[in-house]
């Protein structure tokens, strides 16, 4: 197990494959069906790039995802918390993650995760309506968005504008099929790029295949 060049992310070679890990904030506790590995005092949770787009982006070569120890994160589209759990590991006990999702069904599972991890909380809200939760969060260092909506770039910029601090990082997972199934994903990613470039500096862009088809990740700075 070696420390990778990305803060808080560990790596191990398994034959030709690179495996990613984060240090488990709650040792002994699995979140999904991930592998746990103990090394000395520490326990590591394997980070599956097929279940988490952020892990996919790292394996596709993103040199910097912006997330540091003690950061405060607003995560739009947290679902049951697969990726959030690793972000929670990265920011550590003094950091914090606001997980937001509009589906009661997935948030119900996410709440059980929050009960086990003291550095996360759950909001049942529509990311399209930031004014509905402006009284439930604070300014954040990192904004992460992964929601399958036609107007996802617009939602992203709205939230960046209100909640992300100047100099903070904005991570944006885009699913081309939920914007337009008929168009070539590359064309859609290009449109999204020119839309978000007006407000943010894009510091990295990765397509996520073969882990996720027709998806990409933008890593931006405000």
């Amino acid at each position: 197990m070696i420390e990778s060049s990305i803060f808080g992310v560990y790596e191990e070679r398994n034959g030709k494959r690179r495996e990613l890990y984060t240090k488990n904030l709650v040792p002994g506790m699995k979140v999904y069906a991930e592998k746990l590995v103990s090394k000395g005092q520490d326990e590591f949770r394997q980070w599956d790039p097929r279940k988490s787009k952020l892990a996919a982006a790292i394996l596709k070569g993103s040199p910097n995802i912006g997330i540091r120890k003690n950061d405060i994160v607003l995560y739009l589209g947290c679902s049951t918390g697969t990726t959030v759990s690793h972000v929670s590991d990265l920011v550590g006990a003094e950091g914090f993650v606001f997980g937001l999702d509009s589906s009661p069904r997935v948030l119900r599972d996410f709440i059980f995760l929050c009960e086990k991890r003291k550095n996360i909380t759950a909001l049942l809200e529509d990311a399209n309506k930031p004014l509905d939760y402006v009284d439930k969060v604070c300014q954040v260092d990192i904004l992460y968005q992964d929601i399958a909506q036609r107007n996802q770039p617009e939602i992203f910029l709205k939230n960046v504008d209100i909640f992300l601090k100047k100099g903070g990082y904005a991570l944006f997972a885009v699913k081309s099929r939920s914007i337009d199934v008929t168009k070539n994903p590359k064309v859609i990613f290009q449109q999204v790029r020119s839309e978000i470039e007006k407000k943010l500096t894009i510091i990295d862009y990765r397509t996520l295949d073969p882990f996720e088809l027709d998806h990409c990740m933008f890593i931006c700075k405000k």
Partner: protein
Amino acid sequence: MANYIFSNIAGNFVIDSGNRIIDKSSDAVALRAKYKAVEHADAKIVLSLFRGKEYLSAFREKNLAISKEKIRLSVNQDNLISQSMNAMQEMEKVSNLLSKRLREWYSLYNPEFSESISSNSKFSELVSAKSREELLKEIGAKNTMGADLGKTDLDAINVLASAIVRINATKESTREYAENIMKSYCPNLLGVAGVSLSARLIEHTGSLKKLAFIPSSTIQLLGAEKALFRHMRTGSRPPRHGFISEHQSICSAPQKERGKLARQLAARISKAVKIDYFRGKHD
């Protein structure tokens, strides 16, 4: 110098023009009285004041409580219809799977009877209720190539047969349950589409409300999304119907009329759903 007031789930705060919190209280009215004409703060500017530990822990506890309450209140008729719909489908699958097994198992003992009856539900009912002699007589067979199994062997087969009978009965009562909900929740849809198609449409879209805002041309294709997207991407033949093809009026019609019938049924469903949904809104 103007002071600003800002309220969030952690409390009510007075913020001075230098963007510092100068007072807070759970009582907003008292704060307003104390600071006289306070103005509302611009959220974008003051959000940076709430990054401290004490606020984060308030945000955590309050948001968890609020979200739990919202989840509790989110449960509705659509959820109950969807769950019963899925339960019916799963019981159907399980029942078919176990019935096949029962046939194989029972055929060691009485293959002639298994061979003579095609209905799975009748088969398990009869096997659990009657003896081999009675069943052979019913089909007019004199003897059997089945082995003579002992009482413990037959008991084991019978336990499975009765379990299948019970699953079938449960499926039927679940169906009645769903039908009863829909009789008051969406009687027009129920009248046009029947229990299982109505439930499937609600389950697939998530709610009667969403269904009410979907155009009839889309309703026609719900359940055929894969074929539809393939058509849009590659220009393959477009699908003519999705779930609604299970409706009596379509599955019993000749191939070449199905497209037209599907369109008409979708239009009737769409109208019925709108009546049901908006009627519920005005009551």
